[in-house]
């Protein structure tokens, strides 16, 4: 009511009673509350600014690209020296969609100018059919710029990743092939398929391109001299199992991406399962020494020239071989009957256990899947006799390399490997053969090469102290053996401090009538191959290989 009265008064007197007065309120806001609110705002703004800075940071495209999820990506593969063996490169294919061509005739003239070597009768036919077609695969950058500068909508560039192999045939069996869906189908491409698709860094191998080339060159040369069906060679470090070279011939150019169906192209070094003959005598002697049943100077007297075991007879290869021989002489002269006698002294279990220990009886684990499986057999009296001199027992050249590495390196186990490991990843050496066996076997292996009684004189290359054992075996055929041979040499060098094992295998070699042999243990030369044995074939190849690769191995520092 009071208010109403007052209003009335104002209207009557036309008085403006407005005057500024400090408003009074019951709210009592303290200063620290306001400060707190400001503080909260400040904090929010700081957090926001941090967030803003964070959001404003640059993001790397490279980070995205470094995750190899791109279609068709596979990591590169390099050798032990970092040289590319396989490289994934991006390439551009050109396709043409004729329906979108502005002027077909003009387009054809321009294409002829850029790609003069193509068959344009075919191209013209395809253009007139009006269906999309691939015009040119993997074009150069210059041609890409030229073709795109035409500005024709019908030209469709398609970027893709291609795998190229700069060493062509050199590592075909090791690297293997990939299919059109970018999946590995053989070699390391298959066994490391997933890893190669995921890896950022190149996969480094233990192989050496230069040595691989030199070994392959010799195998190719002697393939025409001895007209063999195929050949294989393995060079391995005896101390850590690193494979420096592994060649199987014939091979194929990986860049051609051909489907290999011919069985002659198998990887003989790892997949080929062979009866290797006398190279097994070293194992028989080593097993005897390991068991303490013989020593190198143990004599075997009145050795027969011929033994009968069931229907089969065991003969000496060399009829001039003396009847009384020491263990050392049995190995040097490659005596079959003497080896049988050592085997008989060992008995089945001990010889079998030893062969299992050095890894020649069962399938070996390896970095590629193409690994052969030694043929199983039933042990018996006759089997013991034949196995003692390397017959009736099969294995792969890779397993032979492993076994010779163990025998010569002091008796330590090695796992053959193609993948370069860091030094810390090498496992502690595990001894599987008694100490002192290598010290007894190695000098005998040297004598096989260095003395005239030995069977491997042609591998006696000055300066490299080569030791080794030969093996000549007839190939099996239905119901027995054929005349075709497998000639093998298992070499170790330098024998005073073994570093490398070299296996050379010739599959079905033939004698050569005009090849000139240079004697190593005496002066002079000899024309023509007198016998189709390892001593006259694979040993000669091994000698030539060591002559060529020796300077590289000796002078080029190789770690481990």
């Amino acid at each position, binding site marked *: 009511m009071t208010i109403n009265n007052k209003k009335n008064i104002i209207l009557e007197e036309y008085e403006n009673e407005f005057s500024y007065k400090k408003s009074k309120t019951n709210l009592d806001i303290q200063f*620290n509350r306001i400060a*707190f609110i400001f*503080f909260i705002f*400040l*904090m929010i703004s*700081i957090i926001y*600014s*941090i967030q803003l*800075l*964070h959001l404003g*940071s*640059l993001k*790397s*495209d*490279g980070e995205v690209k470094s995750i190899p999820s791109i279609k068709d990506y596979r990591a590169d593969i390099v050798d032990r020296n970092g*040289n*590319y063996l396989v*490289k994934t*490169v991006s390439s551009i294919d050109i396709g043409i969609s004729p329906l979108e061509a502005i002027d077909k005739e003009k387009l054809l003239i321009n294409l002829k100018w850029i790609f003069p070597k193509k068959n344009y009768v075919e191209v013209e036919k395809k253009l007139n059919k009006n269906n999309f077609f691939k015009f040119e695969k993997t074009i150069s950058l210059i041609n890409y710029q030229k073709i795109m500068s035409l500005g024709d909508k019908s030209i469709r560039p398609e970027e893709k990743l291609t795998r*190229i192999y*700069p*060493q*062509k045939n*050199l590592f075909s069996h090791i690297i293997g092939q990939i299919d059109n869906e970018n999946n590995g189908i053989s070699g390391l491409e298959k066994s490391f398929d997933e890893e190669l698709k995921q890896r950022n860094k190149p996969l480094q191998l233990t192989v050496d*391109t*230069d040595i691989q*080339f*030199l070994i392959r060159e010799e195998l190719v040369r002697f393939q025409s001299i001895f007209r063999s069906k195929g050949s294989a060679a393995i060079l391995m470090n005896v101390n850590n199992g690193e494979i420096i070279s592994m060649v199987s011939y014939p091979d194929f150019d990986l860049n051609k991406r051909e489907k290999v169906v011919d069985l002659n192209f198998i990887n003989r070094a790892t997949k080929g399962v062979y009866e290797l003959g006398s190279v097994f005598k070293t194992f028989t002697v080593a097993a005897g020494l390991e068991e303490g049943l013989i020593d190198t100077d143990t004599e075997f007297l009145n050795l027969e020239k011929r033994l009968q075991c069931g229907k089969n007879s065991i003969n000496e290869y060399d009829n001039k071989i003396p009847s009384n021989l020491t263990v050392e002489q049995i190995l040097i002269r490659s005596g079959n009957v003497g080896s049988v006698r050592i085997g008989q002294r060992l008995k089945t279990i001990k010889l079998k256990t030893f062969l299992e220990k050095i890894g020649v009886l069962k399938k070996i684990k390896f970095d590629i899947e193409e690994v052969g499986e030694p043929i199983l057999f039933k042990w018996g009296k006759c089997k013991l006799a034949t196995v003692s001199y390397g017959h009736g027992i099969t294995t792969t050249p890779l397993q032979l390399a492993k076994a010779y590495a163990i025998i010569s390196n002091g008796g330590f186990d090695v796992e053959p490997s193609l993948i370069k490991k860091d030094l810390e990843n090498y496992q502690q050496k595990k001894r599987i053969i008694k100490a002192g066996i290598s010290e007894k076997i190695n*000098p005998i292996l*040297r*004598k096989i090469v*260095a*003395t005239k009684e030995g069977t491997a004189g042609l591998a006696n290359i*000055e*300066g*490299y*102290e080569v030791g080794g054992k030969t093996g000549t075996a007839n190939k099996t055929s239905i119901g027995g053996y054929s005349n075709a041979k497998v000639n093998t040499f298992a070499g170790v060098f*330098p*024998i*005073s401090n073994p570093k490398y094992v070299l296996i050379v295998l010739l599959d079905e070699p033939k004698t050569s009538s005009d090849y000139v042999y240079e004697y190593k243990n005496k002066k002079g030369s000899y024309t023509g191959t007198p016998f189709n044995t390892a001593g006259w074939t694979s040993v000669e190849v091994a000698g030539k290989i060591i002559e060529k690769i*020796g*300077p590289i191995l*000796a*002078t080029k520092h190789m770690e481990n």
Partner: protein
Amino acid sequence: MKQLALAAIFVLILITSLVKNSTKEIEDQILAINESIRPLKSELEDVLLEFNYLSSPEKLVQYQTQYFEKDLIKIEIMKIKEIIENDENLEINNFIIKNDNK
């Protein structure tokens, strides 16, 4: 006491934001450098591939027969010598010591 705690928190946040800011700047710089290295890396890989191809043993043998047919000769390993520096004296030894282990 409360004011002191609030001030401390404020100072810490401020320092954190400053540090983070400078870290981001460094990160950006690193990224810029990495980005400039990336094409160089790719170029290096291509050049290395070309080098590997041109200096592959197959090519070297081809160049040898093409350009240095008679100039390059094989040296016997036994003729290679090793020079050893021994208290201001130079000692020349055979690189491979002939072992009479026969």
